[in-house]
């Protein structure tokens, strides 16, 4: 089974990628484009729909990443879903080429309400409900019931980050844990592992005066300006900060061939040029 190669644009837009001169190479080198804000609702916008349609027309597949959602984000995502459905209705977007990755159960509920014709995946902020990958070098499926629960939602694909090493897995012991390893697939993001995320963005959110209650998380999209490297005096690695998420960089390739990835149920690799 060949491994599909994807690219996660992150803070980059297609226009930005084109301006940087990287668009043609990306179109040649990657079968699927991961667009949309994975970790922050403030970046949700209708321009994502036009990007998805443009990429699909050029024969690329698309996965729309969606973040944790407050009520505001839910409204924004509802508009995005509405616009995508319009494009499908007008024949301008092939639903078979688009997937949606959710990181909030509210997004699952919204997709159900809207009867989205797109495949849903569980993102890097939801996969903990099925996998324990907090150990140094192992990924464990909790139990068959956890997979069954997501299957009931139409979700069979889970997105995880590289751990920088070849992990040990319990997939071959599925019978003991009550699952069949053929029942799920893993998309592996590299080279950045998202260590933690917050809603109250350390880069963009202003402090709330002590006498006031913040209405929400407002910013000027400072995350788009730059990512930062943080030299934490207590650890050897550099922490990387992009907006509300802290990452570690694991550039090491831990597999020798695609067969190694198949043993880990990984049939998609997604490269992020930036954290």
């Amino acid at each position, binding site marked *: 089974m060949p491994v599909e190669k994807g690219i996660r644009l992150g803070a980059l837009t297609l226009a930005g990628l084109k301006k940087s001169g990287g668009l043609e190479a990306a179109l040649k080198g990657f079968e699927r484009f991961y667009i949309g804000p994975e970790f922050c609702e403030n970046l949700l916008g209708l321009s994502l729909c036009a990007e998805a349609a443009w990429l699909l027309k050029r024969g690329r597949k698309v996965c729309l990443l969606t973040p944790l959602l407050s009520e505001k*984000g839910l409204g924004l995502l509802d508009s995005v879903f509405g616009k995508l459905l319009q494009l499908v209705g007008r024949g301008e977007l092939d639903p078979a080429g688009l997937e949606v990755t959710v990181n909030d159960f*509210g997004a699952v509920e919204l997709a159900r309400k809207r009867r989205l014709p797109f495949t849903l995946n569980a993102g890097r902020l939801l996969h903990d409900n099925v996998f324990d990958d907090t150990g140094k070098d192992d990924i464990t499926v*909790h139990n068959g019931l956890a997979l069954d629960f997501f299957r009931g939602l139409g979700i069979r694909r889970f997105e995880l980050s590289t*751990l920088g090493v070849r992990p040990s897995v319990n997939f071959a012991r599925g019978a*003991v844990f009550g699952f069949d390893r053929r029942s799920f697939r893993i998309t592996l993001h590299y080279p950045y592992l998202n260590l933690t995320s917050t809603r109250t963005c350390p880069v963009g959110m202003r402090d709330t005066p002590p*006498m006031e209650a913040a209405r*929400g998380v407002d910013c000027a999209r400072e995350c788009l300006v*730059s990512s930062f490297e943080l030299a934490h005096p207590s650890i050897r690695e550099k922490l990387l*900060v992009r907006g509300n998420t802290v990452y570690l960089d694991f550039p090491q390739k831990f597999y020798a061939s695609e067969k190694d990835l198949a043993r880990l149920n990984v049939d998609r690799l997604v490269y992020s040029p930036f954290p």
Partner: protein
Amino acid sequence: MKIVSCFSDLKELEPLAGAGADEFYTAIAALPAFSVGFLPGRDLAPAIKTAHALGKKIALAVNAIHFPATLKQLAAAEKRIRGLDRLGMDAFIFSNPYLLGLFSGRRKLPGAKLHLSSVQPVFNSLSAAFFSRFGVSRLILPNQLSPYEARKILAFCRARGIETEIFDYRFFGCAYINGRCQLHRPDHYTLKSAILEGSLCRINAPAGGLVKLRTLDLPARARELPRLVKRLEARFTCGGSPRLSNAAAFFDFFSSGVRYLKYGTRHDPSGVKVKKVAELRRMLDLAEKLSAELPRAEARRAFVAELSGWNGGGF
């Protein structure tokens, strides 16, 4: 509003009730729970009896998001939970939907209720609707949610008879998404020295030279960089990340009808637990008194002014 207090020792129950706790919750090592501070499993049955003798309800947190379990281990956990239900446990706090599913619908526990942990954070009303289908009787709201953002969730819960609970803003305030944070254990990074309070969130060093530019994506906004670097350094060292929960936010939740206020640092020493619950009680009494005596806006102002003078209580 009622106070829900954690405990991890049988001997804490009476003093905590005396300090103002209205309900209790705990965790045991044999069942998956978030964070540390466990009651010995053998003390659970006596704890249920003692809590009920004090006229209080008691809940058990089984709220770790990660619970890898073989079929045998899962059957044992289910048996243990059903046994505790028969003993009179009033509620179980879950976060993983697969565990919620194990005790929902036709498999519903005959006695105990289900609470949704903040470790499975609900930030919007559709997420609340999603989890309401498990039959949860209470949503424990994450502290990274403002009262303004919570309005539709609270309205949904009110309409469905689902209780809501918040954390005390002074004794619990992690800026990161609970249950999804990997800053606390050196699994994916290598320690050079001990880290402050077991987490990378704060750097035990003065600001300056810690943060540098990695990728400049928008050159047109490069002039913002010095300000952003300064902000990041302050927030990762002494300042901490911005927070949505403060005295004003608490008052707004209080007057929105949230019925439960949680203190949940199970690993605190017994004496500290009692002092903190007494602080919660003082704060609630103040909010209730001001709300009874003054129009809402004035009560809020007076409450925030009073709490802004709170000096940390010596904790």
